[in-house]
């Protein structure tokens, strides 16, 4: 490690002076990791507890208070006395807090606030993580200074900076459309989280058509891109916007067709139904049920990369070619809104991938093993918590979706960029016929499986096991390569140069 010595001017102020006393600063620095982990655990427990509370109010309390018909919005609410009869005796004084929770509108508003908080946190985390992943792939460390532990506060600091930046609107631009375009980008991204189920009871609205709802909202984002490009009155923006719109709508077709393969396997458009159909452990996951579904998993991933204008298909945002594409004239918080929308859409797309192909919120262990836990401990909230961690719960969903978010980041910084005509060639002449064939094949496979033929059941089982083992091989290979890289990291990475701050 080379030390660069900088002459220390006697009048220079130390950068990043902190307001805390020195001993507190050292203590916080040592405890930063555990503090962050505790914060994450407390958030998870809080979400679990409030979900359980809402469920209890909705079903248990209303039934105990003998007024099961009171589920309309404003007619005949339960009084405090009736609520107190339904609660356990020791906690009857909390009836004040429980009273507003009986109205579905109130619960909806709280859930919407939670959804919007999650929708804000995911891009903040993803932007920091992308910079760290990009740094590591490029033999450097990424942000390290803001927040002292691997620069974890870089994203919030960037957010604050962007809010305080000057609000620029180009002179000849269409002022109203320029201002309105980021809102058209962020509203569909946020609304997609409403239909995305995180767990069996962790969904804002269990829509009958949630898959098509999410696809529709991802398709509406194209309008924002075109408007942003057009309203900037800048020909590079218009080119970027048009190319981007072209790419996004072209890739929606193979994306939709690849997503129809699990729909055909399960027979429902509802993401909740598809997730629950995969609760039998690793070998019941739809990616391994069918060779067509396995290939559909891969082609959906590629098509979703292009639809999110990510990874090798980010020509419209190419920094070296079109300045910044349709984002050229956007600065400050409007730019941040576009980026929030993009990273949130990446998470939604990864979440849909996980639910449709990889079991959603189910763990690799079959859900039926959870009955053993319930029979041992009893059907109380402790057993449900353990089941949530071991067999089926939102933590599994978030972990898997975050892993695929990581794969999207990884692919971006590994593969070179693809030209626009190659992008459209790949869509129309490769992915579209491929997904058509996959849909056809999957339909025939499911039709054959519906007939009670013993020979076909055997073939189905063998293919299922083979594909499951292929999946296990991929996961094991990933873990092995990551462990090898971590163990030999000093030798493989080379000289990481860290410049000290002046005077530090």
């Amino acid at each position, binding site marked *: 490690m080379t030390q660069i010595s900088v002459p220390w001017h006697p009048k220079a102020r130390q950068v990043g002076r902190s307001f805390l006393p020195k001993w507190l600063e050292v203590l916080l620095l040592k405890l930063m990791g555990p503090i962050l982990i505790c914060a994450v655990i407390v958030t998870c427990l809080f979400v679990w507890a409030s979900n359980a509370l809402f469920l209890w109010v909705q079903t248990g309390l209303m039934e105990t208070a003998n007024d099961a018909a009171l589920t*309309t*919005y*404003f*007619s005949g609410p339960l009084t405090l006395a009736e609520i107190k009869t339904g609660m356990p005796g020791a906690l009857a004084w909390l009836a004040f807090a429980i009273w507003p929770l009986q109205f*579905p*509108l109130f619960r*909806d*508003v709280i859930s*919407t*606030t939670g*959804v*919007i908080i999650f929708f804000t946190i995911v891009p903040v985390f993803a932007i920091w993580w992308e910079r760290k992943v990009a740094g590591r792939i490029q033999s450097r460390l990424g942000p390290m200074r803001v927040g002292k532990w691997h620069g974890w506060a870089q994203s919030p600091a960037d957010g604050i900076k962007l*809010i*305080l*930046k*000057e*609000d620029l609107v180009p002179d000849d631009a*269409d002022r*109203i*459309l320029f*201002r*309105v375009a980021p*809102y*058209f980008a*962020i*509203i569909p991204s*946020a*609304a997609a989280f*409403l*239909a995305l189920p995180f767990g069996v009871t962790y969904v*804002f*609205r269990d*829509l*009958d*058509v949630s898959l*098509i*709802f999410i*696809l*529709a*909202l991802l*398709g*509406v984002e*194209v*309008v924002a891109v*075109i*408007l942003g490009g*057009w309203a900037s*009155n800048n020909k590079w923006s*218009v080119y970027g916007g*048009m190319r981007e*719109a072209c790419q996004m*709508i072209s890739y*929606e077709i193979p994306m939709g067709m690849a997503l129809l393969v699990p729909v055909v396997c399960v*027979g*429902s*458009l509802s993401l909740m139904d598809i997730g629950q159909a995969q609760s039998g452990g690793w070998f019941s996951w739809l990616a391994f049920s069918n060779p067509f579904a396995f290939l559909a998993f891969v082609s959906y991933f590629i098509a979703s990369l292009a639809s999110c204008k990510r990874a090798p298909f980010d020509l419209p945002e190419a920094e070296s070619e079109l300045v910044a594409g349709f984002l050229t004239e956007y600065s*400050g*918080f*409007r730019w941040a*809104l576009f980026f929030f929308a993009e990273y949130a859409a990446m998470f939604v797309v990864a979440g849909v991938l996980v639910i449709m192909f990889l079991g959603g919120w189910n763990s690799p262990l079959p859900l039926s093993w959870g009955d053993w836990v319930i029979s041992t401990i009893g059907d109380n909230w402790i057993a449900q918590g353990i089941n949530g961690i071991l067999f089926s719960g939102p933590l599994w969903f978030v972990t898997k979706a975050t892993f695929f978010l990581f794969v999207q980041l990884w692919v971006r910084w590994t593969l070179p960029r693809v030209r626009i005509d190659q992008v459209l060639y790949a869509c129309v002449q490769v992915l579209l016929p491929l997904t058509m064939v996959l849909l056809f094949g999957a339909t025939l496979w499911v039709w054959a499986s519906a007939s009670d033929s013993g020979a076909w059941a055997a073939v189905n089982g063998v293919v299922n096991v083979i594909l499951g083992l292929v999946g296990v091989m991929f996961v094991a290979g990933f873990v092995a390569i990551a462990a090898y890289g971590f163990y030999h990291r000093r030798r493989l990475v080379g000289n990481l140069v860290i410049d000290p701050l002046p005077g530090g």
Partner: protein
Amino acid sequence: MNVRVKRIFPAAVAMLVGLGSTTLTALAAGSSAPTAAPPGGVLEAIMFYAVAIATVVSALGVCVSRNVVRMAVWLFLTLGSVALLYFLLAASFLGAIQLIIYAGGTLILLVFGVMLTSKSPWVRWEAPKLEVLGAGVVCLALFVTLSLVLCRASWPGAEAALPGAPVADIGRRLLTAYVVPFEVAGVLLMIVMVGAAHLARQEK
């Protein structure tokens, strides 16, 4: 206005708009089981009036705008509001189809058409004022007549909205009773694709 407030204002407005519209979308997207009746009551009335007023205002915005790109934006808002109306009617599949095909397809086609055929974003062509006035009078008269007729007609059995049908019913009907129009529509779309590709070809 203080400079700091001015900078935070777009952020606050964005968050409010996002929160409000997502709440509205969610509340409109149907409550519990898909086959439950859309419940009557004050909240449904408020949501219907809000979305209906948004639809009519956006449609009026389309009429009144003088710039074609702004007309397309108002059309996008109209299409989105009509999709919300479909969700309120418990026809959620159709609402999603409206968003995918109309807002995410036809509208983009129209905007591409606008961009490929305009020389500058600020060109305005206006019809003579007399024609606009005449058209306005005729349309207003038509609207008044239609609303009076529709409000006074009595539809037997149409007091409250019926429970929504599950999506599987639509699929089943499409492939059994309406399979011929379904296939003909597919052939028609193929013809349209060929025709559009021919129309947009490069002249050598």
